[in-house]
């Protein structure tokens, strides 16, 4: 597989070994193993309920795995002694529902974590914030509250908020699924820019355009297992798995 070539190329940032997750009797992730390399932009696709959201949420331990290991930056983060908080500082996450802090202005949303975690002082944080807001084209919204923004604007702020922590990897959990169609592109463009700058990204998405055009690796999850893993060309033009073929047929109609 071509993907193997990629794996050789970059240093492994996240190593997932035999990851399992079940909620009671319901097995959601069943023995998932994958190496995520620095600089990779991975699209995670699959039918709804396949476990792709649980997979990405397990990476920063918002879901606690019931089996297997996750090695991030050389550290076993599933170990009991590991400080999850420190892990999460280095993994940015963008949610489907944005999850901006409703009681804080845009600027304070972004500044809160770097200042409270003493990564920056107030003026540094403010400077960084304004720079990030400029990058996402929202510097004029700095003093507004989330409720005054459109969905697309909220998601761009959420991306800026994660970037303010200077993360090693960005996790996107269906970042455009809650957006009106005309706003999807403004968010995808930001993600595209980010990919070009070499950010390691894991993106759970239904945007096949993004998966094809921007990501350099696509994994297809079905029934809690990785069924397909390869470059966009491999996965989209020559799918091996019949379930993937059905899935692609239904989404690319």
């Amino acid at each position, binding site marked *: 597989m071509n993907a193997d070539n990629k794996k050789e190329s970059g240093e492994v940032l996240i190593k997932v070994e035999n990851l399992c997750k079940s909620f009671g009797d319901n097995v959601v992730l069943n023995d998932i193993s994958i190496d995520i390399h620095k600089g990779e932009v991975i699209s995670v696709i699959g039918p709804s309920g396949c476990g792709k959201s649980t997979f990405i949420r397990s990476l*920063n331990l*918002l879901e606690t795995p019931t089996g297997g290991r996750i090695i991030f930056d050389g550290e076993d983060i599933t170990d009991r002694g590991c400080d999850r*908080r*420190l*892990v*999460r*500082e*280095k*993994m*940015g*996450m963008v*949610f489907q*529902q*944005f*999850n*901006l*802090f*409703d*009681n*804080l202005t845009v600027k304070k949303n972004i500044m*809160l*974590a770097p200042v*409270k*975690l003493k990564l920056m002082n107030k003026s540094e944080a403010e400077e960084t914030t304004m720079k990030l807001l400029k990058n996402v084209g929202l510097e004029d919204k700095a003093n507004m*509250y989330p*409720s*005054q923004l459109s969905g697309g604007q909220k998601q761009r702020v*959420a991306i800026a*908020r*994660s970037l303010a*922590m200077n993360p090693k990897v960005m996790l996107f959990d269906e970042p455009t699924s809650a957006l009106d169609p005309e706003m999807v592109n403004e968010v995808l463009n930001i993600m595209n820019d980010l990919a070009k700058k070499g950010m390691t990204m894991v993106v759970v998405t239904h945007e096949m355009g993004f998966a094809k055009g921007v990501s350099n690796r696509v994994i297809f999850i079905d029934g809690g297992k990785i069924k397909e893993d390869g470059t966009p060309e491999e996965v989209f033009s020559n799918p091996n798995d019949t379930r993937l073929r059905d899935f692609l047929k239904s989404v690319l109609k």
Partner: protein
Amino acid sequence: MLAVFAIFCTFSVCVYAENTDTSGSAAESPAAASVPETEGVKSADDLTGKKIGVQLGTTGAILAEDVKDADVQKFNKGADAIMALNQKKIDCVIIDEQTAKAFVSANKNTLAILPDSFADEDYAAVISKDRSDLLKQVNTAIDEIKSSGTLNKIVSSYIPEKESDRGNYHYTQVVSQGEKLIMATNAQFPPYEYYEGGEITGIDVEIGRAIADKLGRVLVIEDMEFDSIIGAVKSGKADIGIAGFTVTEDRAKQISFSNSYANSKQVIIARIKASAVSAAESTVSSDEEEVPTFIDRLYTNFVKDDRWKYLTTGLWNTLQITFFAMVIGVFLGFLLAIIRVAHDKNGRVPVLNVIAKLYITVIRGTPAMVQLLIIYYVIFASVDINKVLVAIIAFGLNSAAYVSEVVRSGIMSIDNGQFEAGKSLGLKFSTTMIHVILPQAFKNILPALGNEFISLLKETSISGYIGLMDLTRGGDIIRSVTYEAFIPLIAVALVYLFLVVLLSAGVSRLERRLKKNER
């Protein structure tokens, strides 16, 4: 058992003879001749099956139970029983003779004391059974006060043969510093103990002072509910109880009685028949017996003897209790809520969570009044502690349980995404809580919190049960001296209403401000 009986017999023997003359028959016999015809109850033999009003914990209340088929209704205050009698809710009131005289003189046209008394009784002080030394000292003191004639002077100043002799003698305490002698009483029982000009005064109070002098101690008076006094003396909250206690066998099992210092009768008060009233009115109307105007009544209830001060002192205490209880309630309530949420969301602090849950269950599962009494009479039983502080602690602890559930519901109403966003940024649970969750939750729960504050303010009206003079109690004291229900009760109600309106306005203002802030 035998010993108890022996003591009991001694009490009966040492009836104080001289006193009987002044307080009893001499003053009463002319009145007896001119008793107008009463309705409902005509004599002591006429009580069977009647509705009898008594004051809770008094001898009258105990003895009335023995009346055949009678419906005995126990009131917290004698004045309340009199009120009920006037409103025809009951047929008669059985109460101590001297108190009865005071009540009847305030209700000359409607009430009368029946000529035949219900029972005779001896008054004695109560002292804890554990303190036989003190009992001995007090007995010696009482004997000395009797033989020196001081006792007689005190009694005849309050219950004079001639009206001109009223108040011709007052005993002032000589000893001004040193160990305290805490006397528990119930200042709703004129002429033995009652409020006058903001001070508790009366026969028992002056006798208490004379006893304290003999003991070389300074008398400190604690006013409380009559039925709380024995408990207070037993628990050590007070050294001695002097409140017109009649020596009874049941009480003697609980507590030691001193030698008796006075005797009295339980008499029956009944309503004068309507026809007799008009006759009485026509004969007295030439005198100054006019129906008081509303202004007169306002004057009697608030201006005379500076009675408004009972309300202002009470209001001040109510405000202090409410404010500080709110502070404790909010602080502790938030803490409890956060403990419970930290457990429910993250599975942390399991032990604290169990404690918090237990606390909330116990506090919400028992009445605030019972909690207040437990804190005062059980937890702080042998500690000399400020009653306002006790009330603040009791109401604060109580309010915390309710506040915590309000806060918890507020926190749970915040979208889980807010918690997850905080987590995903590496923020500590506490940081997310303080900077993100609580500000949002606070805005949502403000109306419910305001509601809790309003309940708390009104709930403090039970503070009177530990003898604390709050607003309600202030009104009660006025009621007990003016024998009027309407004006003091309405006044107290209006003050509470005003406070609640003020509080609600403050809360909605805060609500608007927070809304403006965040849109």
